[in-house]
């Protein structure tokens, strides 16, 4: 069950990271598809590092 919890944590962090990254990019006026995708990518990297550190 502990491993299931860890897996759920990872999935949620990655989804949450992508979402938060896209929202921040939108707030920063990067509103093209490329800008939003770059923001989501930045958010995913941030989420991975959140989990690792």
């Amino acid at each position, binding site marked *: 069950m502990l491993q299931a*919890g860890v897996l759920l944590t990872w999935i*949620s*962090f990655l989804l949450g990271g992508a979402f938060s*990254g896209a929202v921040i990019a939108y*707030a*920063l006026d990067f509103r093209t598809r490329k800008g939003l995708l770059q923001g989501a990518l930045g958010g995913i990297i941030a989420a991975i590092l*959140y989990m690792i*550190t």
Partner: protein
Amino acid sequence: MAHEIVGILSLLVFVFTVLGPLIMVGGRRLIPLPLQTLLVAGALVNIVLTVLAIWLDGGSLNEMLSLGSAVGSNVILLPIMAMAGGFLVAGALEGSGGFAALRVVINKMRGTPLGMAGTLVFIAQFSTIFAMPCGRIQAAALLPVIITLGPEGVRLITKKQMVVLVTALAVNAAASCGPSQIGGIGQIGEGFLQQLGFLTSSQEFGIMIGTAFTALFISLFVTRFDMEEKIRLTEGRQLAQSLGAASTSDATLAQTHDEEVIARKFKAPLVGYISLVIFLVALIGAVFGLFGKTPITTTLLVATVVIMLIARLSIRQVIAGIILHPITALVAGFLMAGSLVVSGGFKSLSQVLVWLSEFKVAGVGLGVAGMIALFVQIETIMPMPCGRILAAALLPIVVAMGPATGWMPNASGLLTYNQLAIVLAAFIVNAAASCGPSPIGGIGTISEGMVRSEIGYLRNAQSYGIMAAMTPLAALVMRFWVLAHNPFSLENLLIFFGLLAGIIVFNLGMIKFINPATFKKRRTPTQEKEKNLATWITFLLGGAVSGMVITFALFWPDQASGFVSSGPFFVYLLQGAVGGTIAGALLLLT
């Protein structure tokens, strides 16, 4: 009898010392003293009052003389030492060029597929990724990057982007001391629960999403009129491209020049990169237990010594990293808490909390659910320059609501162990983040200084992000990830992702609603009124939903995970909504 009166009086002294500096009269603070000074003075007053009570109740001289040690014993050394260890390694990183290396790495990210958008997102979230014991360390390391890229630097980001970025950075940096494994506030709560790292992921998830909502809030909250009138940051020449450069080569030349300026600004010695790697190895090793049972503080100190030897740093350079403010805040908070223990102030507060949970108007009251929904937001309602001040004083009260202590017989047993863990996660992330919107020296005031806005202009966005996203999400994650018996059960997944989606959709709608003037091209006579009304509605509804989510996390029955049904669930939800609404109103009023 005298003890009971002194208990109430000492509680009033505490409330006065905390609220006094927040009250403004004629544009000036009512009590223009540092909070730490006030708290220590308040603790002394409480001790004198307690001596008086002992004398009136016929107590002995020995009883009076033992008060000093009783108060002093409440100063817990472990979080102070962990924080000092974090500061020392930060000092070593600064002295060796580790933070300069970090700035170079972040700047280089712009050339990767992340581009400018992804890099700025990374900067906004960075403080909590490598969370230090105080968010000011990361903020200080990152601000030069933003200043250089900003409108008064090489103008790669606009004035509005800078306002959004520094607001998001401020709330993220402020909150980062909650989940920090090197002396963060969360470690105090984890100490009470006796599980290191137990509260980390819930806080981090809340911070990640809360940062995004704060950014979106401020992006829509600032109108173009405000941008011209209330944000006095100067905006120099635009990039050559946007000015309509005579030829493509002109634009390329201008861009090359800008990049050269940035490259000159961001340089780091080799030893800086090495010290950064040493720090990361120490941090990851300590978090994952790669060095056996070595305490984190010891690991950090060894890393500090290794960096000192490699970079040939003096002790003075390392000690320069220590920020006294959070340390004195923690000690002052502990002293105040100790004085409340001996004076009976905590007992009185527990009576107030129980009274609040039982108080009813026309048969309707807050209940425990409403009281908790309000209590977890209290630090952002009374934002101190450092969240530790109130956290150190109030955490014992939160813990006393749990099953084990018996310090406060009235409150004891209000919550089970699992419910206590949820409340602690929500309370601590709220406490940590509260130094962002604090108008009396919080991290947000640094951002406001950077964009030269009015003091408090960026506060609402941060307060909303903390209240409506960080706090309830920390509770939600704690309940449905960390404490769930079977996280992958269909019911658990549906509830978690359903509530998560609900919070996201609701907040997106509320933030869109926040400022009707955002999309207007001209200033209208009723614009400020409309904006104020929309802000009030947003905070009240946001508070209500936040309170309901926290209540849901606390009371949704699931026997396998240790949550038994304890009463009418929908009544609890309603009580949580009322408590959250009151919190939303108080957030705007204070």
